[in-house]
């Protein structure tokens, strides 16, 4: 273990609150964050069956504003932002020229002249610098880093909408998945309410001022409003198992600067036909060459054992064919699952492979993803 003093960890406005609730804290990308409060499995199950609340203020917020902001977004983001309506968001990514990932991102169209990009915590500075550099000298638009302005709370689960109804008069039924609105939340005017999340459940993310008193007040009101529904505060541990069950990418694992869009299985979000964007030529070249040589697939352990990040994936003959990008027990599914980039010949569902666990090959099978899909509510 290193004896050097660690660089001071960054804290969200709710750091004292998490500690007061008895959270186990962890260093996540330089942030002092709660990994669990009452227990990872309980928190995971709360989100799947009731409701949970996450402090995700460590994530970043970049706004591109001005008459030329759409053109700027189109240049750096691979999805087609011209298809967004006001109040709509979509999943996209910022790419390097070689078609690999700077980061994944949710792009929100606030207006014709105003786009909000929500980016990962661990890549905040890198993303902001890359966006500024990629758009340097462009007239009619400017880049603002609003990351520190917001406390961002994610309220997720089948009962999230019931909790939100107690906190806002906004017409929540009018906000569909991946849409957003502005409304009064906990007395705060013009709060961004987005029907987005990273759990595979219905849910909302709200963006409130990041001062400590406001952040604490709203957090407490969310917990109070959620009490009758069984709300739990949830940490990064459950956040990871929830997104893994839903096969959602995590930077540095399923996507990175060494993995291209096709290899990550995210080509449906890359709209090559929209016109030029950074990375487009590289992706076109991959397509012209007949596709990627490897692709992200879901794995399920068929023998006893847990596949974890970094473990070797083996062919039935014992040859190493890839590495686990993310692997963990799945608390809701009660299986041990993983995601890995494998050579194309091993990517068909039903393909038998193995994962090396403590020097032993343990059998697994390729499965379709997502591993978990929530029930659609009856109309």
């Amino acid at each position, binding site marked *: 273990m290193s004896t050097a003093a660690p660089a001071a960890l960054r804290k969200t406005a709710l750091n004292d609150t998490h500690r007061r609730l008895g959270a*186990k804290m962890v260093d996540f990308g330089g942030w002092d964050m709660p*990994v*669990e409060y009452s*227990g*990872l*499995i309980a928190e995971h199950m709360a989100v799947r069956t009731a409701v949970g609340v996450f402090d995700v203020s460590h994530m970043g917020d970049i706004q591109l504003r001005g008459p030329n902001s759409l053109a700027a977004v189109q240049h750096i983001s691979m999805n087609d932002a011209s298809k967004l309506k006001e109040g709509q968001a979509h999943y996209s990514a910022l790419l390097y020229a070689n078609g690999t990932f700077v980061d994944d991102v949710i792009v929100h169209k606030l207006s014709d002249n105003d786009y909000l990009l929500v980016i990962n915590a661990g890549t905040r500075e890198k993303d902001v610098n890359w966006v500024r550099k990629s758009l340097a000298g462009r007239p009619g638009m400017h880049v603002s880093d609003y990351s520190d302005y917001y406390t961002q709370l994610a309220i997720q689960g089948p009962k999230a909408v019931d909790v939100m109804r107690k906190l806002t008069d906004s017409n929540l039924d009018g906000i569909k998945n991946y849409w957003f609105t502005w409304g009064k939340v906990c007395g705060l005017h013009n709060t961004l309410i987005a029907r987005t999340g990273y759990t595979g459940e219905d849910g909302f993310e709200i963006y409130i001022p990041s001062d400590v008193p406001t952040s604490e007040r709203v957090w407490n009101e969310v917990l109070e409003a959620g009490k009758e529904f069984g709300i739990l505060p949830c940490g990064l*541990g459950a956040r*990871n*198992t929830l997104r893994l069950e839903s096969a959602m990418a995590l930077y540095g694992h399923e996507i990175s600067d060494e993995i291209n869009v096709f290899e990550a299985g995210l080509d449906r979000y890359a709209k090559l036909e929209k016109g030029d964007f950074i990375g487009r030529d590289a992706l076109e070249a991959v397509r012209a060459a007949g596709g990627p040589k490897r692709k992200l697939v879901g794995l399920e352990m068929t023998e*006893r*054992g*847990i596949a*974890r990040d970094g473990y070797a994936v083996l062919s039935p003959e014992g040859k190493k064919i890839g590495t686990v990008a993310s692997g*963990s*027990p799945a*608390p809701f599914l009660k299986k041990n699952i993983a995601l890995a980039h494998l050579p194309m010949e091993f990517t068909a569902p039903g393909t038998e492979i193995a994962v090396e666990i*403590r020097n032993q090959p343990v059998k697994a099978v390729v499965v379709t993803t997502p591993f978990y899909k929530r029930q659609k509510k009856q109309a």
Partner: protein
Amino acid sequence: MDYPATYKYTKEHEWIELNGKEGKIGITDYAQNSLGDIVFVDLPKVGSSVEKGKVFGSVESVKAVSDLYSPVSGTVTAVNEELTSSPEKINTAAHTAWIMKVEVANAADASDLLSKDAYETYIKEETH
């Protein structure tokens, strides 16, 4: 939870209950609390040798793998098969959910292990 006075403890948070040459070994309540929900236990094979201070198996929570270190050298005479299907027993009753039983090769192995008081002092310091 109470730390039994009849047990001895290691700095790696294992406990051992010694009865002559038979040692019963598990992990402490402090350890299970740090790990969180335990979902998997990798048990040693009955009949295999274990060495004082060396890894004999592992315990896994959702988030992490934690190696288990043997407090004594000897031969594994039994393993708690219940933990294969119910690993969470370690979370609810760490001091009775034993992991393995060992025939101790050398009684002197236990002499440098921590007493209940020494262990409680040790973990109090660890959390500061």
